[in-house]
């Protein structure tokens, strides 16, 4: 377990968010791109049309491999912090950036 300050945690989380987002973009691009590119080719693999097999089964494989890589190289274990006391039932005021 790594001990990070709040600021380091925030930075680390932003990094993880960025890479997760990049992975979903890659999966989406693959899934959409190959479906439209290969649609119309008359070929079957295990009872599935070629375009479907490459785009959807492929997107599944990329998702799983991608998550494994993310967990290995990007995501980091750290302490999530302590539980606050239970006194949080108050109405809130302010919150406007300019009221300070």
């Amino acid at each position: 377990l790594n001990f990070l300050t709040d600021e380091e945690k925030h930075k680390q989380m932003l990094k993880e968010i960025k890479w997760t987002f990049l992975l979903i973009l890659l999966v989406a691009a693959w899934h959409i791109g190959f479906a439209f590119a290969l649609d119309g080719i008359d070929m079957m693999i295990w009872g599935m049309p070629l375009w479907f097999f490459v785009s959807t089964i492929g997107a599944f494989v990329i998702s799983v491999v991608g998550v494994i890589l993310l967990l290995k190289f990007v995501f980091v274990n750290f302490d999530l912090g302590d539980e606050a006391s239970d006194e949080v039932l108050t109405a809130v005021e302010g919150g406007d950036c300019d009221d300070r």
Partner: protein
Amino acid sequence: MTDNQKIMLAIMVVYLIANAVIGLIYSKRQERLSEMSFEKKYFMGSRGMNGIVLAMTTVATYASVSSFISGPGAAAMTYGFSQAWVAGVQVGAAFLVLGILGKKFAVVSRKTGAVTIAGYLKARYKSDALVILTTVLMLVFFVTQMIAQFMGGATLVESMTGLPYWLSLVIFASVVILYTAFGGFSAVVITDTLQGIIMLIGTFLFLFYIVRSVGDFDAMAVALDTNLPGWDTLTGTGYTPGGLLSFWVLVGVGVIGLPQTAVRGMGFKDTKSLHTAMLVGTVAAGVLMIGMHVGGAWAGALIGGQEFASSDYVIPSVIQQIMPVGVAGIFLAAPMAAVMSTVSSLLILASASIVKDLWGTYIVKDNPEKKAKFQKNVSKSSFAVTLLIGVLVFVLTLTPPDIIFWVNLFAMGGLECCFFWPIVGGVFYKKGNKQAAISSSVIGVLVYVISYQFKLTVWGINAVVWGLLAGGIAYFVIGSMTCKDGLDQDVLETCF
């Protein structure tokens, strides 16, 4: 009732009892082990989920009756493999939601004691208007979604066992409502885990028997060519390219904005659990969604010459045709599990929102006397609220008013447009203030509803795309215009 129907009913009853017993025993054990306050035990399971439970509850909440009945049925009868492609979009949902929101929600909710999405929004934006707006909208959509799920489940039980609709509904609605009300979040997530496993088993059974019945794939292709011409094309059965791409927003990236899924980021134990859940959840979602819909597309070869009232009847009919009755009973448990896991998750979050975000914050307020009383009775009132919402939904499901169906059309897209930018923008945008959040929710939902209702769209693109686009523009433009000096110091400390 025929013998087959009796066997189905028996399997179903055993399965329901198992759910109730496991849910209640496990939640009581968790409660004894935890030293947290009642609210955190009841509404958040003391933030104790491990990786497998987190993965399964995320996937099970997300998978609904349509993943087993409507979706595969549409693949068989109407859309062929293009429907299976649409289902494939959902493969990324688990790692997307957990990877983007998981740790941020875990850290912020521990600092602020939040157990709901509105609780996070309150800490992040400090706006009463936003809390009330999002909570009320969420409750309305949740009620219509629960009704739709219950109706789907009851119709299915009715068609398989021959029991009257109302009795089918009583049998399983009472089980869901009871274990959710008595056991709270811990019971919801442990039964979700059991239900997720049942759904995976159901998927494998479905694929196995479909493949066995269609014979070889060449014969299947010949049958499908007659039954559903264009079954093997992407756009030949009715989906437009714009409509297909929209699914990447509606059931792909947009699911980050679904509060019932996002709230799971507040309930896990440590970062290791989250990492395990991202992988397990992705595998489970992929097997389930792709498996059921590929099976559905293949099932189109078996329904030649049959007429169905709607595609929802295809899968139950095919099941009875190809599976021995005992196996069909086990398969039937999968869509029922999907109904129960979705409803129980919506129910507990609805109850948490009413008790904590509305009642606790705006009726009890700061009066110390009232507060002490509220705290003293919080266990009874939480239980009562959960039970009451459950009963209300049950009664409405018996004879649903027409408006329910109309509202439910907007439920998924509406929730996404309402919550997406306040949640996602709030994670990283330091100028995202309450003005930005409120305007993005209001504008997003309005644009979505208007464009949906009046079919204002181009290239067949789904209204949710326009709603999220408008909401996003509103969030960033209004944030950068109104937030000159940055956010309050305490918001920066708790949320960044």
